[in-house]
């Protein structure tokens, strides 16, 4: 039973991290603009997040300490503080985008006023966290997010071009002259796969569930590969559906409403409802992940008691932090800011925080003095450094690409 719960943790992190509002927006638009060409960016991101999630799960299991704790100890107070500030900014931006996304999806489902639905979205998420045990949050939002499989069904129904799909696994631009926009979407897809809040949530979850090296390290590997693999599969399904349905008709699917039109047009009302419900759970799960990541980071940095498994009274500052970040997201959304714009900024700026998160993690995971027999093997080190190089490249190019392409609009 514990193993099933463990896999569920990975699935929740994967659905919430991989198929959050950022991924829905970037995958849908990427498929509508460039067809199958950017599938490689999702695969690259999926392998990257699986590599680092496995490392952070292992570090958390062996040391019994989550990633942020390790960052502060390993890299010192100043570096830790810099990482904390960058991560918290990205976490709050992500939370604004996700809560706004939940409200947009609820609006498409219920047709009520957007601001009223922002209130409802915050209430639903806060009440879910307050009332549901950790496992049930995972089950409800993680497995609810799997309803997004309707995009895969719709894509199969359209008869995807398998040859072009296989070509899309290798980066080689075809039939486009706007290489900067293509590069912007590649960066966006990669970044939305590797959002740092995923590893903060994942490693803290591992500590909360009391993973031990003897019984959970294999499970950790399976969870990282399977969980993020499922997320990647769903993202690729969205790209394929978009490439087959929107691209030939010249539609730019840059809103959640348009993204849901594909399953509706192909599978009717049932397709529409499944797509919207899948979006609700996936985006809602990501909102919970990012609010928890913000609370975990702050509590772990300052050494407060933390954890969902403790009652609110047992970890009052941790509880107060996630409530406050929800309140902040609520206030900002009530000003009328467009959550889809916030999403793009959150994804692109997360890239800047990535090296600060992933470097200390890699240094600890490969340190034999710290990790003993559980330190990275040769493959883990090669993949870790390779991905760190890619992350640096992406971090340097993200903001210039966002500016030069006017948020991918050309």
């Amino acid at each position, binding site marked *: 039973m514990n193993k099933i719960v463990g896999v569920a943790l990975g699935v929740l992190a994967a659905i919430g991290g991989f198929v959050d509002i950022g991924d829905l927006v970037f995958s849908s638009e990427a498929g509508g603009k460039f067809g199958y060409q950017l599938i490689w960016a999702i695969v690259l991101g999926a392998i990257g997040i699986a590599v680092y999630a496995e490392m952070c799960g292992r570090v958390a299991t062996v040391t019994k300490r989550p990633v942020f704790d390790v960052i502060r100890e390993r890299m010192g107070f100043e570096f830790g503080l810099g990482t904390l500030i960058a991560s918290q900014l990205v976490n709050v931006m992500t939370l604004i985008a996700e809560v706004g996304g939940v409200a947009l999806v609820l609006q498409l489902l219920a*047709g009520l006023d957007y601001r009223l639905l922002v209130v409802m979205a915050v209430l639903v998420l806060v009440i879910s966290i307050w009332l549901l045990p950790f496992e049930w949050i995972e089950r409800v939002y993680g497995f609810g997010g799997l309803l997004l499989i309707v995009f895969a069904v719709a894509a199969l129904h359209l008869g995807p071009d398998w040859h072009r799909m296989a070509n899309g696994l290798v980066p080689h631009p075809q039939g486009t002259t706007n290489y900067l926009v293509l590069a912007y979407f590649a960066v966006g897809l990669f970044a939305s796969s590797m959002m740092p809040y995923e590893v903060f949530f994942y490693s803290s979850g591992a500590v909360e569930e009391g993973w031990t090296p003897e019984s959970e390290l294999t499970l950790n590997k399976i969870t990282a590969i399977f969980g993020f693999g499922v997320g990647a599969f769903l993202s690729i399904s969205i790209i394929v559906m978009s490439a087959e349905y929107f691209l030939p*008709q*010249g539609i730019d699917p840059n809103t959640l409403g348009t993204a849901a039109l594909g399953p509706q047009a192909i599978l009717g009302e049932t397709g529409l409802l499944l797509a919207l419900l899948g979006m609700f759970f996936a985006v809602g799960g990501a909102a919970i992940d990012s609010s928890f990541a913000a609370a975990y980071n702050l509590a772990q940095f300052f050494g407060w008691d933390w954890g969902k498994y403790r009652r609110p009274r047992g970890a009052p500052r941790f509880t107060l932090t996630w409530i406050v970040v929800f309140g902040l997201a609520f206030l900002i959304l009530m000003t009328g800011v467009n959550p889809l714009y916030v999403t793009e900024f959150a994804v692109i700026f997360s890239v800047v925080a990535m090296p600060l998160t992933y470097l200390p993690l890699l240094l600890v995971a490969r340190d034999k003095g710290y990790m003993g027999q559980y330190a990275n093997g040769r493959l883990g080190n090669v993949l870790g450094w390779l991905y760190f190089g890619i992350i640096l490249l992406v971090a340097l190019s993200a903001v210039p690409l966002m500016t030069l392409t006017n948020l991918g*609009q050309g």
Partner: protein
Amino acid sequence: MTRALAVLCLVSLLAACRGGSVTPFRFQHDAESLASISTDGSLLAHGIFKGETTDAYARIHASELGKESGQLAAILRSAHPRPGLRAKTAQLVALAQRASNLLGQIAEAPSDRSLAGRLTDALEHISSVATKLSKSA
């Protein structure tokens, strides 16, 4: 007095610059956006006609598309087209405004299947004209 005049000049300048200038690149981009919005609206209308969507979704999505199209018309109306693009820009503004009105009708009556059936073709027509305009830039 001098300060008030300076502010007035600045406000007039900003108002005049609001829509910017319409270059061939921008015209093509805006025409493609309109084609995308109206095709999207046409498919939505077709879904309503076939009874394969929900009222809430139809109303919200049509309203969202209508607003986008209306904003496109408003921005283009206040923009300054290059000499060769004046007539085409005026045509694009009229098309965007018409698409916005049609989508507004869907948003107001999302369960009216016969209206949706009529608007499917009208929106498809706007999309095909906008596509031709984008290729002519």
